[in-house]
């Protein structure tokens, strides 16, 4: 059996020595390769562009600080996305702690709709178009549910990949995924009833943007 080589292995090796000659070029390449994917995941979890940009910086800074601990037991991208998810959740928690946004967590309150009591003005503005409204609906879920939805649909991860990235068992991934679906559907029905038909119609025509 032939093992697949990590496509980022060479760049990662060059990035291990911050003082070396090839460091900056490798860093730039790695950053360019992942910045938009990292941004998209961060955006889904934190809910706005400013915080998402901050998470991108934070994630890459943490990544290089911890790079010596990366042994190559998984793909570099798996490791990177785990860092991004953790940074995003931490970022969101700090914001929640400061009282700007308060969302119920389905992880601690099974069966309760995770409704945000005070949507931020920036989310209100984004809600002008369908994508923005869907993002608004996602922002009312707990950070963990947002993260699993982001990885599943933005990165098209399988359940096994989700388990590896999030450091969870396959069973936990499946149950969390199911809860994320149910919670998001409940939020749309309760808070954005007009979206229900719009989304279903666009899905039927293959355009959900």
């Amino acid at each position, binding site marked *: 059996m032939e093992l697949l080589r990590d496509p980022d292995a060479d760049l990662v090796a060059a990035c291990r020595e*911050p003082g070396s000659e090839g460091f*900056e070029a490798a*860093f*730039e390449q790695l*950053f*360019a390769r992942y*910045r*938009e*994917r990292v*941004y*998209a995941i961060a*955006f*889904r979890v934190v809910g706005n*562009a400013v915080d*998402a*940009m901050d998470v*991108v*910086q*934070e994630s*890459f*800074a*943490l990544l*290089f*600080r911890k790079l010596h601990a990366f042994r190559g037991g998984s793909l570099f991208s798996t490791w990177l996305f785990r860092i991004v998810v953790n940074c995003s959740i931490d970022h969101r928690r700090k914001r929640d702690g400061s009282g700007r946004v308060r969302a119920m967590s389905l992880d601690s309150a099974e069966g309760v709709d995770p409704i945000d009591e005070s949507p931020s003005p920036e989310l209100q503005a984004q809600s002008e178009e*369908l*994508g923005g409204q*869907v*993002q608004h*609906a*996602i922002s009312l879920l707990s950070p963990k549910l947002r993260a699993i*939805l*982001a990885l*599943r*649909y*933005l990165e*098209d991860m399988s*359940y096994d990949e989700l388990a590896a990235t999030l450091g969870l068992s396959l069973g936990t991934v*499946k149950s969390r*995924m*199911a809860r994320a*679906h*149910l919670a*998001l*559907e409940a939020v*749309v*029905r309760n808070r954005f009833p007009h979206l*229900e038909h*719009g*989304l*279903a*119609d*666009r*899905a*039927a025509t*293959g*355009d*959900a*943007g």
Partner: protein
Amino acid sequence: MNRPHDPAHGTPPECRAFRASLEATAEAPHARACAACAAAMALRQGLTSALRRAPTPPPALASREFLAGVHERIVAGIEAASSLAPKIAEPIETPAAPLRAALGDQLARALATPPTSPGEGRWQDVRRAVIDDIASRRAARTRIAVWVGLAGAAAAAMFLVVGPGSDRVAVPTIVFADLSSAPSGDFTVVRRGADR
């Protein structure tokens, strides 16, 4: 297809179980038979299609300034981490690189320069001191040998005069005698024949 179930009665358990299943699709037999679940599946499909669309990143993400910001943060992080660890491992007296280079230079110059001779008189003093030291050590060794010899002879004499005689055990003498003339020392009665 059935009519949608009455919301006042809540979602039936079979519908809840179906929607919680990860394999639930609009094409599943349950969805074909249940209008409410068919609508839920249509909504799910619409939501997942929307979720697959990545948000448009701001142009700043691709700018040189943003990249420089990330780079700065990395360097700051590494410096903050490395400024803590070596202070414990590295000796405090270790000179910095330029100072170490200057010291190395001085040492090289010192090794290349031949030492000046101390003079004949000084060498004679050293020679005399060495000879005196050897002579005094030899005299000390002789004195110790004499004292050890005398002590040994005294110990041997004491052993011969006092030691062996004082500890000698007397050999007992056995005398057979009649009871009428019993000796004054310890004795044992040996009876022969019946009791009287």
